[in-house]
């Protein structure tokens, strides 16, 4: 670990062990499937075996006759309660249980409630559904064909599969720059459909108390408060009679942002039976039906001067959104934050247009640690820069260094209108190159290439010298959504609340609206409060994940916990500190104006006395001490934090691969990641998040994909088919850090949860393509499986989103 700028030298920040580990290492975590309630029943979902078909009949009588079955729910049952359809997070609707057609393989058709989970599964086989097959739309490139079947005939007047057209940037100016540029290069590239696949699948326990009318839902939720509002809107239950508890969550990565039909069915099951109903997805259901990610078919163009100055980018995207537009993103951003695609470079101009289409695939669209599509944007620009470097025959590091934004340019407004808060990009790239010993890597590569040219592999059967590739990616993220004036989800502005209470003995409880799925909020947020109040993190309890015990807020995704709720935690602590100042003034018989906060205590300025600690002040605040008029007793505060802007973490990544030219196998030899996420509250946790994201990026680059065959069958519906990286594919990650505080965040922190997932795929792909340079390969689509690499070498690249034939 190399650090250029140290973190805060003293105080509560630092690599302390996590509080939450105490339960996890003992097997005492409490995840949704660990919940057992008296009389609890179990649900199971019957799913469509086909991608597109009209339902002509459903016979549930045999299932209902099963001795352990309590209820069978169909679309018709739900329609009677106006629950057959629910709103998505993108102004569309989605079928809870199909009433008219099924629109993707794995779509929910019926829900069985039984006394145990095995019986519920058995009963699914007793339901008869008649399907009248319809032609499916599988290839997004044919979704807008004039003769394409109309998937969403449920929408009145819908005559095609177009969802939206969206653009950003200045089209006319971009066209001008391109027309006059020395060099213009174009490249098609696919960021294929992948799935976040947290190790714990999605699930819920719904318990409607028939006496009080209160619905309690234990759920794998990244956004408990948003879920509560959504349940209220969907079911019509009053919001104060709904309590969402998100207990320990086994990873989210965006998969647990939305509400899935199974959740609604479990609620209805509980209403119908009068018992709690548990529903847990199996892995196939998770991969086949819940929010996928990416699926961007991109056409990129880059314009530059012959000297390597990048002038502009022009992008067209065909976005496959599946059968329902269920992308979870701020309302005004139908392509998420893809508009930040100019990346880390000072371009004169840029323009992109994105067309969203329906296909007969599962809905979703924004998930998987992408910061609302910034991973697609970064992949595009970082591949285009490498394409340009190849064309100009310059080193890709040199080309980047030439075009990176300079520190003096911040705050920087990009060609598409984003205001980057702070950064020192060249410093991060230089550090990464130093850690990697970049010149030595290039020297080794050159030497090996010369050797291969001089002596082609002899027939001695030794494996041929492997091809060495070096890939660079520089990314800028935009996280911490967001300013509520122009960022909302379902009309809910993206601000988050925090409540802080200091008990009489000086122990504090912080309640927050965000929800950890492994990020360590119970530790990090305690550190934030501790730092502000001069406490030990051990003396701060963090409450989260229960809507009855926490203030409203939008939840944890898009790397927004630290930028938004972390700021709220700091602000609410400062409010408490200011309250404490008044109390301390009364205790010290001084004017509050004469007090200063130093070394974790309020002291009288210029007085060598010890002053008063928060613990002493807290006791006094709860005592009979006389306080100035208008000052309430006790020591607590609330806040709602409305971020003034996003934060813009960034990083420089270098990947070194070896490729077997005969088999196409790729080995990642080294991966160097320098991240700058501003001030690091707990560097150990930050590094852990980076490690995880790097593995994610490696997985997407090399193995993860959800493809479909021509009938619309999902070809990635199990962990045998949807491959996640293991310990064997991951190198020992080499990290570095620079620290450029965010100027507008109260503690200078930026989000980091998704940085590595956003930044790393391009580094891996660039490295593989670099290795294949001797074969003249300029691009190949992810995932770069052995077959895909070999086919790229052959000049017959695979179409990775379709069945391999």
């Amino acid at each position: 670990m190399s650090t250029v700028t140290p973190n805060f030298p003293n105080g509560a920040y630092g690599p302390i062990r996590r509080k939450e580990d105490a339960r996890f290492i003992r097997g005492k975590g409490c995840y949704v499937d660990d919940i057992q309630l008296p009389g609890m029943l179990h649900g199971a979902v019957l799913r469509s075996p086909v991608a597109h078909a009209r339902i002509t009949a459903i016979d549930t009588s045999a299932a209902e006759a099963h001795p352990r079955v309590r209820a069978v729910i169909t679309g018709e049952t739900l329609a009677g309660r106006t629950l057959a359809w629910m709103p998505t997070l993108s102004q569309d609707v989605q079928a809870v249980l199909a009433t008219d057609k099924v629109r993707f393989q794995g779509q929910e058709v019926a829900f069985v409630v039984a006394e145990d989970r095995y019986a519920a599964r058995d009963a699914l086989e007793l339901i008869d559904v008649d399907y009248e097959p319809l032609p499916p739309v599988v290839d997004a490139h044919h979704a807008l064909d004039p003769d394409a079947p109309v998937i969403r005939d449920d929408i009145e007047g819908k005559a095609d599969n177009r969802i939206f057209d969206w653009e950003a940037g200045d089209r006319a100016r971009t066209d001008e720059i391109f027309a006059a540029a020395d060099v213009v290069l174009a490249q098609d590239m696919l960021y294929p459909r992948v799935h976040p696949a947290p190790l714990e699948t999605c699930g819920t326990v719904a318990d409607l108390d028939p006496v009080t009318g209160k619905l309690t839902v234990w759920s794998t939720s990244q956004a408990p408060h948003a879920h509560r509002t959504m349940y209220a809107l969907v079911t019509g239950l009053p919001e104060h009679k709904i309590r969402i508890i998100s207990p320990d969550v086994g990873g989210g990565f965006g998969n647990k942002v939305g509400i899935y039909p199974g959740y609604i069915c479990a609620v209805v099951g509980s209403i119908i039976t009068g018992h709690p109903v548990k529903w847990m997805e199996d892995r196939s259901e998770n991969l086949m039906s819940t929010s996928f990610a990416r699926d961007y078919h991109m056409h990129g163009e880059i314009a530059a001067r012959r000297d390597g100055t990048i002038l502009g980018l022009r992008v067209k995207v065909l976005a496959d959104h599946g059968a329902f537009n269920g992308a979870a993103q701020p309302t005004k951003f139908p392509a998420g934050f893809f508009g930040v695609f100019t990346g880390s470079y000072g371009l004169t101009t840029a323009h992109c247009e994105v067309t969203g289409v329906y296909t007969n695939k599962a809905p979703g669209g924004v998930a998987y640690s992408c910061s609302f599509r910034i991973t697609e944007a970064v992949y595009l620009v970082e591949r285009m820069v490498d394409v340009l470097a190849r064309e100009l025959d310059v080193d890709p590091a040199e080309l980047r260094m030439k075009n990176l934004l300079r520190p003096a340019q911040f705050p920087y407004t990009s060609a598409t209108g984003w205001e980057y808060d702070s950064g020192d990009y060249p410093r991060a790239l230089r550090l990464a190159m130093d850690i990697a010993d970049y010149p030595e890597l290039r020297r080794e590569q050159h030497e090996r290439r010369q050797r291969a040219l001089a002596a082609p592999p002899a027939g001695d059967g030794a494996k041929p010298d492997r091809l060495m590739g070096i890939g660079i990616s520089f990314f800028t993220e935009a996280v911490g959504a967001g300013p509520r004036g122009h960022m909302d989800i379902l009309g809910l502005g993206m601000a988050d609340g925090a409540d802080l209470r200091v008990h009489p003995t000086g122990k504090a409880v912080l309640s927050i609206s965000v929800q950890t799925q492994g990020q360590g909020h119970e530790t990090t947020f305690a550190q934030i409060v501790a730092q502000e109040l001069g406490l030990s993190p051990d003396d701060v309890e963090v409450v989260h994940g229960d809507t009855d015990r926490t203030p409203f807020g939008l939840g944890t995704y898009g790397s927004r916990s630290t930028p938004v709720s972390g700021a709220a935690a700091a602000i609410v602590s400062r409010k408490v500190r200011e309250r404490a100042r008044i109390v301390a003034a009364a205790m010290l018989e001084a004017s509050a104006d004469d007090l200063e906060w130093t070394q974790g205590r309020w002291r009288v300025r210029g007085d060598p006395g010890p002053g008063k600690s928060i613990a002493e002040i807290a006791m006094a605040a709860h005592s009979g001490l006389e306080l100035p008029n208008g000052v309430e007793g006790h020591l607590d505060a609330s806040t709602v934090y409305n971020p003034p802007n996003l934060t813009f973490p960034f990083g420089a990544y270098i990947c070194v691969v070896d490729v077997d030219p005969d088999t196409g196998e790729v080995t990642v030899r080294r991966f160097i990641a320098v991240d700058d996420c501003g001030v690091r509250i707990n560097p150990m946790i930050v590094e852990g998040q980076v490690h995880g994201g790097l593995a994610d990026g490696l997985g997407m680059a090399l193995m993860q994909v959800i493809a479909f065959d021509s009938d619309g069958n999902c070809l990635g519906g199990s962990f045998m088919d949807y491959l996640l990286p293991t310990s064997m594919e991951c190198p020992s990650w080499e990290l570095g850090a620079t620290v450029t505080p965010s100027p507008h965040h109260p503690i200078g922190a930026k989000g980091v949860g998704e940085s590595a997932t956003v930044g790393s795929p391009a580094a891996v792909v660039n490295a593989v393509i670099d290795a294949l340079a001797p074969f003249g390969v300029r691009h190949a689509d992810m995932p770069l499986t052995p077959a895909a690499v070999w086919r790229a070498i052959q000049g017959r690249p695979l179409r990775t989103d379709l069945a391999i034939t």
Partner: protein
Amino acid sequence: MRVTLTVNDAEHTADVEPRLLLIHFLRDHLGLTGSHWGCDTSNCGACVVWLDETPVKSCTVLTAMADGHRVRTVEDLARGTDLDPVQQGFSECHGLQCGFCTPGMMMTARWLLDRQPDPSADEIREAISGQICRCTGYENIIRAVLWAAKHDRPPGEAGEPGAAGTGQEDVG
């Protein structure tokens, strides 16, 4: 059918369906929810427990097959309040985030260290290669097991307390 299993040194007799998977018996019948499940196809390893002396994927073992055998789960790693060095290592080295794969990883780590007290990083990688972690990129899991190897001790000797605290050392 009636089965008798010795789970974490306690004997349990139960009437179960022959098809009941061991992971469900442990979790739903005995309430030992420390072991998890994450897939249908024996790939993820969240369910790893020991059957007699070896780690197995308990989603792929019938309770009936374990009749008459011993099972050891994560709940048996600590001796009272005395944590196993593997548990300490995972905490010290931030070898876990969401915690879902952790019990299975620790059971495999304990088994590895019992057979190979001084494993290399590569040996640890190989040992855990049948278990998926989505959070850590494996790096800190490997460091955690190396930490445990360094701090391993014969059974019965006292270990460090495992509760959270700020006095951290040895975090790589």
